[in-house]
C-alpha cells in the first residue's frame, strides 16, 4: 500500500489550484497539486476575454472602483451572492491583476490619444489619458457599468495559466499528471486527503494531507452541448458530495453562454460583444435592443441567452440541418481589431467553421458554460461541515456569483480566491490542533473500499454500456434541465436520471485492463456525474422561482419572500437516488445592497419582507454621511476588511486615487 504524506493536497491544477499551491508553499508548507492533464492544459486556458478588476485605467473605466464592481457582481448574481465574499473578491481582484503583471503576464496596455471604438453599433472616437499610457487596459463586458475587464488579446486565460504554471515550477511544487482523485479520505468530521488513481498504470495511492483543496473546475460535461473542455466533468466536486458530509451549494444555477460557435459549442468570447459585436437574426435584424433597451447585447449572460432562445422560439432563428441558430456580427470591428484583439475567435471561426469573421457573420447559439454551484464553503474557503476540506474557483460555491456569474468574473475569482484561500489554508496548517493525526486503518480502509469498487466494475457481468449512459445523461440535462425549465419536464428529467443512476450500477466493461482504460474511467465517472446531475435537476425542480440563470417558465418571477436562500445538497447514502436538500437563508438585514431591479431583464419580483426596512436603514446611514469618504460609508454598511488575510488588506491605487507615500 502506497501512502504519500504532504501538508496540502490540491486537486486540480488550473488557476485556482496553482495559486493556492503557490500561496501555501510560500508560507513554508509542502504542497502537491494533482492534475488530470499537464497543468497548462487545464480548462482555465480557455478563458478568452479577460479578468474583471477595477483598475480604471481606460477612459471608459474612469470612476470605476470596488464599489461599482461590487454592485455589478451582486446584481449579476440576482442577489444570490454572499455580499461579504463579493467585497473580499472585488478588493483582491486589482491586487491579483497586479501580482500577475509582476510575474510577467503580458497584459494588453493603454495607448494614449485618440482611438476609434464601436459602441452600440456606432463608430466613436475616445481619447485615452496621457497618464494612463502603458498601464493595463480594460474592455467592456456584459453586465458591467464600466469598462473593467483586463485582457491579453483574447488569450487571457492561456496567458494567465502559462504565467501561473511557470511560477508553480519556480516554487518547485510537484504536479503529478494523469492523477485522478476518486475519493476523499475522511472520518465524517475531518478530511485527511484523497485516494488517487494513476490513469496510466491504474495504481491507487493514498495522499494524506493536513488540508485538502478541491479546485477541479466546473461540470459542463454533464450537458450534451457545452463550451467546457472534455475534462470538465466535475469529478473533484462529486467526490466531495460522496462524503455525505460536505454539501454542494446552488447546483441548479447553471450558466448558458450566449455565443458559442454553432453547432460545435466552442466558445467565442464575450469580448466579441464587449468590443462592439452585434447579435442578428434570420432577417439580419439586430434584435437585442427590442428586448433589452438598456444594455442590449451587453446585459448579463443569463438574460442575453434567454432572449436569444426566446427569439429563436418566435421563428426568427436561421435554419440549418443541425437546428436553428443566430448570427454574431463582428465585421464592423474591422480586420485589424479582429486579427489582433479577437485572434482566437478568428482562428476558431477559420478552423472549425470555415468562416472569415472579418467579412462574414458567425453562427452562434447558447450552450452550457459555467457551474455557479459547487462545494459550499465559508469565506475562508473551508467546508462548514467537513473540516480540513477547502475549495476555490469554479468547483466552489464561495459564493460570489449567486445565480449568475458575470463574464470576466470567473478567471478573476480563480486567482483572487486562490490568493485568499491559499493564505487561510496556510493558517489552518499552522494551527497546532490541525496536525494530522490519522489512524492508518482509516487510510487503509478507504484504499480497500475504492479498490473494491474498481475491481467490481472490471469483474462485473453487467449489461449496461458506460458511454451510452453518459450520452443519455447529457441529453436529459440539455433537453430537460436547460435554459427554460418547467416543473413537469424537470420531474421527468429527475425520474429519468434516477433510472439512469440505477442502471449505472449495472455497467459491464468490454475492455477489462486495470491500467490505462478509457472505458473504466467513463464507467466510474458517470456514476459520480449522475449524482451531480441529480443535484442540479432536483434542486431546479424544488426551486419554484426564477433567479439569475435558473429560469422556471411556470414561476417566472424572482421570489425573495420565499427563495432568498442558498440550496445545499448532500448525498447521505450510497443507495440513495436523490440528494437531500436543505436551504441556507441569506439575510437581507446584513446586505450592503438590498434586492431590487438588476438594471436589465425582468422588472417584477416578489420582495422580501425585510427589504424595505433595510433600504430605509441604508438610506438613513447615507444621510448621516457627514462628508465621510466612500470607504468609511462602506464600513458602516457592511464591514468586511477584517475577513481578508492580512497580506491582502489595504487600498488599491488608481490614477484618480493615488495613495500617499508611506513614511
Amino acid at each position, binding site marked *: 500500500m502506497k501512502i504519500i504524506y504532504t501538508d496540502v493536497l490540491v486537486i486540480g491544477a488550473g488557476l485556482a489550484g496553482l495559486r493556492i499551491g503557490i500561496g501555501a508553499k510560500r508560507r513554508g508548507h509542502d504542497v502537491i497539486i494533482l492534475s488530470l492533464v499537464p497543468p*497548462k492544459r487545464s480548462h482555465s486556458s480557455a478563458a478568452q476575454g479577460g479578468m474583471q478588476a477595477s483598475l480604471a485605467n481606460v477612459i471608459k473605466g474612469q470612476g470605476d472602483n470596488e464599489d461599482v464592481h461590487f454592485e455589478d457582481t451582486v446584481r449579476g448574481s440576482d442577489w444570490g451572492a454572499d455580499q461579504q465574499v463579493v467585497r473580499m473578491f472585488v478588493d483582491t481582484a486589482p491586487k491579483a491583476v*497586479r501580482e500577475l503583471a509582476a510575474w510577467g503576464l503580458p497584459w494588453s496596455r493603454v495607448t494614449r490619444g485618440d482611438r476609434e471604438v464601436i459602441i452600440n453599433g456606432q463608430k466613436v472616437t475616445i481619447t485615452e489619458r496621457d497618464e494612463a499610457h502603458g498601464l493595463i487596459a480594460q474592455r467592456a463586458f456584459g453586465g458591467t457599468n464600466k469598462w473593467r475587464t483586463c485582457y491579453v488579446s483574447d488569450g487571457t486565460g492561456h496567458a494567465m495559466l502559462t504565467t501561473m504554471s511557470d511560477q508553480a515550477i519556480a516554487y518547485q511544487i510537484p*504536479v503529478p499528471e494523469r492523477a485522478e482523485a476518486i475519493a476523499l479520505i475522511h472520518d465524517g468530521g475531518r478530511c485527511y486527503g484523497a485516494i488517487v488513481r494513476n490513469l*496510466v498504470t491504474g495504481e491507487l495511492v493514498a495522499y494524506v494531507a493536513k488540508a485538502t483543496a478541491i479546485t477541479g473546475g466546473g461540470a459542463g460535461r454533464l450537458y450534451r452541448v457545452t463550451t467546457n473542455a472534455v475534462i470538465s466533468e466535475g469529478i473533484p466536486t462529486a467526490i466531495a458530495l460522496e462524503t455525505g458530509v460536505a454539501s454542494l451549494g446552488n447546483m441548479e444555477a447553471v450558466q448558458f453562454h450566449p455565443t458559442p460557435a454553432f453547432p460545435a459549442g*466552442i466558445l467565442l468570447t464575450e469580448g466579441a460583444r464587449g468590443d462592439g459585436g452585434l447579435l442578428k437574426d434570420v432577417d439580419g435584424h439586430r434584435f437585442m435592443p427590442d428586448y433589452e433597451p438598456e444594455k442590449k447585447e451587453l446585459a448579463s449572460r443569463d438574460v442575453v441567452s434567454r432572449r436569444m432562445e426566446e427569439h429563436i422560439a418566435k421563428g426568427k432563428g436561421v435554419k440549418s440541418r443541425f437546428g436553428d441558430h443566430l448570427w454574431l456580427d463582428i465585421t464592423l470591428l474591422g480586420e485589424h481589431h479582429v486579427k489582433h484583439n479577437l485572434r482566437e475567435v478568428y482562428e476558431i471561426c477559420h478552423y*472549425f467553421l470555415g468562416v472569415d469573421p472579418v467579412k462574414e457573420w458567425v453562427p452562434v447559439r447558447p450552450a452550457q458554460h459555467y457551474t455557479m454551484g459547487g462545494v459550499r464553503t465559508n469565506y475562508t474557503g473551508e467546508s462548514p461541515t467537513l473540516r480540513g476540506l477547502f475549495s476555490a474557483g469554479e468547483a466552489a460555491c464561495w459564493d460570489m456569483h449567486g445565480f449568475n456569474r458575470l463574464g470576466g468574473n470567473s478567471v478573476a475569482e480563480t486567482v483572487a480566491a486562490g490568493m485568499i484561500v491559499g493564505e487561510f489554508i496556510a493558517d489552518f496548517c499552522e494551527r497546532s490542533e490541525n496536525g494530522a493525526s490519522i489512524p492508518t486503518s482509516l487510510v487503509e480502509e478507504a484504499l480497500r473500499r475504492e479498490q473494491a469498487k474498481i475491481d467490481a466494475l472490471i469483474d462485473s457481468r453487467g449489461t449496461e454500456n458506460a458511454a451510452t449512459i453518459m450520452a443519455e445523461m447529457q441529453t436529459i440535462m440539455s433537453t430537460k434541465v436547460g435554459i427554460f425549465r418547467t416543473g413537469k419536464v424537470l420531474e421527468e428529467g429527475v425520474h429519468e436520471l434516477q433510472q439512469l443512476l440505477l442502471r449505472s450500477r449495472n455497467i459491464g466493461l468490454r475492455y477489462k485492463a486495470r491500467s490505462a482504460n478509457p472505458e473504466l474511467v467513463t464507467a466510474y465517472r458517470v456514476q459520480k456525474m449522475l449524482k451531480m446531475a441529480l443535484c442540479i435537476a432536483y434542486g431546479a425542480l424544488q426551486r419554484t422561482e426564477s433567479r439569475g440563470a435558473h429560469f422556471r417558465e411556470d414561476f417566472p418571477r424572482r421570489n425573495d419572500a420565499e427563495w432568498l436562500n442558498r440550496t445545499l445538497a448532500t448525498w447521505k447514502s450510497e443507495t440513495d437516488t436523490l440528494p437531500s436538500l436543505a436551504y441556507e437563508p441569506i439575510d437581507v438585514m446584513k446586505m450592503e445592497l438590498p434586492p431590487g431591479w438588476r438594471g436589465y431583464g425582468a422588472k417584477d419580483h416578489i420582495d422580501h419582507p425585510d427589504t424595505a426596512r433595510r433600504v430605509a436603514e441604508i438610506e438613513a446611514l447615507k444621510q448621516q454621511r457627514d462628508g465621510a469618504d466612500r470607504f468609511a460609508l462602506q464600513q458602516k454598511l457592511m464591514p468586511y476588511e477584517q475577513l481578508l488575510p492580512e497580506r491582502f488588506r489595504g487600498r488599491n491605487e488608481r490614477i484618480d486615487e493615488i495613495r500617499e507615500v508611506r513614511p
Partner: protein
Amino acid sequence: MKTETGTRKLKISILRFNPQEPGSVPRMQTYEIDEAENMTLFIALMEIREKQDPSLQFDFVCRAGICGSCGMMINGRPTLACRTLTKDLGTEISLAPLPVFELIGDLSVDTGKWMRGMSERLETWLHMKEPEVDLGRLEERMEPELAEKIYELDRCIECGCCVAGCGTARMREDFVGAVGLNKIARFRLDPRDRRDDADYFELIGDDDGVFGCMSLIACHDVCPKELPLATQIAFLRRKMVSVGWK
C-alpha cells in the same frame, strides 16, 4: 469512396501499442467510419472509441485548438487533431503518436514530463528584480507594442509539434527544442526579467541549446500557432554568439 447517402467512408489507420499491457507489440490498426459534416479528428476518434474500440488511447482537453493536448502525427506531419477537419484529408488517414516524447499508449504521449523538465532546466519563469511588489500600487508601465510582442511568443501551447518535427531532437535527447528557445526569447524581451544575455548563455549557449539547431526549421512550418520560430532562433543565435565571443 462514397456510400449511397453521399457521405465518404474513412479508413483511419492508427499505430497501436500499449506499453502497460504485457505482450503488446506495435502494429497498425484500421477503423472504418462514415464521415459526417464538419467532422474533426476529435469527433472521429471519440466515435471510434465509443462504438468500436473502448481501449483506444488518445488525448483531448479543450477540443478548440487552445490547450495543445492533441498533437499527433497526421499523415506523417505533427499537428493538432482537434482542429483538423476530415474533409481536408483523403479517405485514408494515418495517425501515429508524436515521436521524441515518452509513449503512454497508442496516440497518447507524455508531453507534460518533457515540458516540465525543459522548464526546470531553462528556468522559464520571470526572474523578478525585487522579491516582493506592493500590490496596492499602480502597476509598472509597459509600452503597448512590447506587451503585444511578448504575448505573440507567449501564445505557445506546448503541444510538442515543434519537437516532434525537429531533426536535432531526434538525435540529441536533451535538446530544448524550439519551444524552449522561444521561451528564452520571450523572457529576453521582457524588461521585468532581471536576467541578461550572459545568464541566458548559461542556459542555451551549447549544443543542447541554440547551437544544436541545424536550421531545418520544420518547427516553424508545423507550429499550429504560427509562432515566428525561425526568426526567434536566428536572432537568439546571433545574440548568444556575441556573448560567446567575449
